[in-house]
């Protein structure tokens, strides 16, 4: 039996009498990226801070690869992007990244090469000689992500990795995660559900410090009904719903927000629902923006009944 990468037992953390985490128990194995979602104040950052060893839990136990956080056995094996942490303004980016690499056991030349490698990975090779004060918010975030990549750790905890980044850089981060996820397990805390939807197969939902659901699989094969999310150009919502509802195999049609429809259907009655929907849209001369299988992560986590 392989050792889980993360194992928390009855983890509780209390800030000034207010519980931030309540009795969280999880066991996670290595593999695809894991999303950590929840509203503001749900305890996501607290959980990541405890896992990273920045914060001691009030009670409960935590093990990463079988060791407590901050254990010397985890150096080079576990890394993190802490929320809002900034580099030292007195030193250049390369000096600091090379210093971190040396703390992980690299020699001086190896450390310098590693600093260049991770900076190139986040498309910031040109900022190597800059000091952190010369960087924009987005660049500073990418440098912080670069430090998490030093030494290709087995587990990387990312707290809001794409917050404040422009779309191009969001794509860069997405690519890094996709490229490295074969050898590294990422735990990603984010409010960007669309982004998590793309990257993560497993999702942890925290609400008011309580873990609501350990793993939400994206595979709906086991369920009796399936979903298609349809995003339309401007259209008569009532009429669209009425016509879609009348299609063969459709169980239910909902309109959670303007121009977005979720079609729940029975795949046994209509296995090619997507084609049937396209034909219906074409016949009624309605323009659509996107048709995707399944519900959005937002719908799954926060609005499903």
């Amino acid at each position: 039996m392989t050792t889980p990468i993360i194992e928390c037992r009855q983890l509780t953390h209390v800030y000034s009498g207010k519980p931030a985490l309540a009795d969280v128990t999880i066991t996670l194995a290595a593999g695809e990226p894991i999303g950590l979602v929840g509203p503001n104040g749900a305890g996501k950052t607290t959980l990541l801070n405890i896992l990273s060893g920045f914060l001691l839990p009030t009670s409960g136990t935590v093990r990463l690869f079988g060791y407590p956080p901050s254990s010397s056995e985890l150096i080079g094996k576990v890394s993190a992007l802490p929320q809002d942490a900034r580099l030292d303004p007195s030193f250049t980016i390369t000096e600091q990244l090379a210093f971190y690499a040396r703390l992980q056991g690299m020699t001086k030349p190896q450390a310098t090469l590693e600093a260049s490698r991770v900076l190139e990975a986040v498309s910031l090779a040109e900022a190597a000689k800059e000091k952190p004060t010369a960087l924009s918010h987005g660049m500073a975030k990418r440098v912080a992500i670069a430090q998490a990549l030093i030494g290709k750790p087995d587990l990387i905890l990312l707290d809001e990795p794409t917050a404040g980044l422009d779309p191009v850089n969001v794509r860069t981060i997405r690519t890094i995660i996709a490229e490295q996820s074969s050898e590294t397990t990422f735990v990603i805390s984010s409010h960007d559900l669309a982004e998590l939807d793309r990257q993560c197969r497993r999702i942890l939902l925290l609400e008011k410090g309580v873990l609501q659901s350990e793993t939400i699989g994206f595979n709906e094969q086991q369920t009796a009904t399936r979903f298609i999310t349809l995003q339309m150009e401007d259209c008569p919502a009532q009429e669209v719903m009425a016509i879609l509802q009348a299609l063969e195999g459709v169980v239910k049609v909902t309109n959670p927000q303007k121009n977005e429809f979720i079609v729940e259907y029975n795949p046994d009655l209509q296995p090619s629902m997507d084609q049937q929907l396209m034909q219906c849209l074409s016949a009624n001369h309605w323009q659509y923006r996107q048709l995707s299988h399944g519900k959005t992560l937002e719908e799954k986590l926060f609005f499903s009944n």
Partner: protein
Amino acid sequence: MPPSKFKQVLLISQFELKRGFATRKGLLSVVTFGVVWYFILLYPLRFVADLLVQGKGLQHDSSFLDFIGFGSLQHWPIPEFGVYWQFALLIFPMLSITVAADQTSSDRERGTLRFIVLRSSRDSLFFGRFAGMMAIQILLVGATAISVLVLVLFRDVSLFIPALPDLAVIIVNVTLAVLPFTALMAALSAKVKSARQATLWAILIWTFLAGIISGLAYYLPILDVFQYLIPGNQLSDLAQLSEWRTLQLAYIPLLQSVVLLAFGRWIMARQAL
């Protein structure tokens, strides 16, 4: 393979040395200190030493020197070192309270410590920063002591060999004198949010603790033993000693440092970063 704890302490202290002498902010502080020290060396220190060398006034009035607490001046065979000894015991502990005030506080507030503890233990971080700060101060003490040696050699080159033991004893003793102050700042820095807060707390603790213990010891003399907890408690007695006799009191700063570092380590181990 991660480095040993000793290697981590070494790497962190080396990085602090770099901060002290190879960054813009560090260099500015060193240059400022150098300029101030130049004027201290050139005027008060040389002036008093000249008086002692020429045997005018001060040297013959030993009761006056004893009265103002500079009694040991006349016991140093090389007067410049006697004067430097008095200056150093006053200046370096004070300097330590400001120079060593920011061992971890601002980095913790900025979140920089998080990047470091992902790759080293909190102990290595705490002791590495402390060791780095001590190394910076030892270099400053060494540089000022050597500047005094140069002053001595300007007067009489033949004093070079006899001056070396005094140079060594002064560097060792001043280092021991700043040790508990640096340890106190390490402990405070691990808790408070800024260097300024650490300095303020150090002054408050130093003043009030000394006052309270002295007050209580007046009524209950057995409590006088707690005076040994206060960094710098031995300095006034130390100022009366000269040459290798100054090491008689070395156990006091060493014990204080051990206690303060243990306390600081305890804080650091529990502190949210």
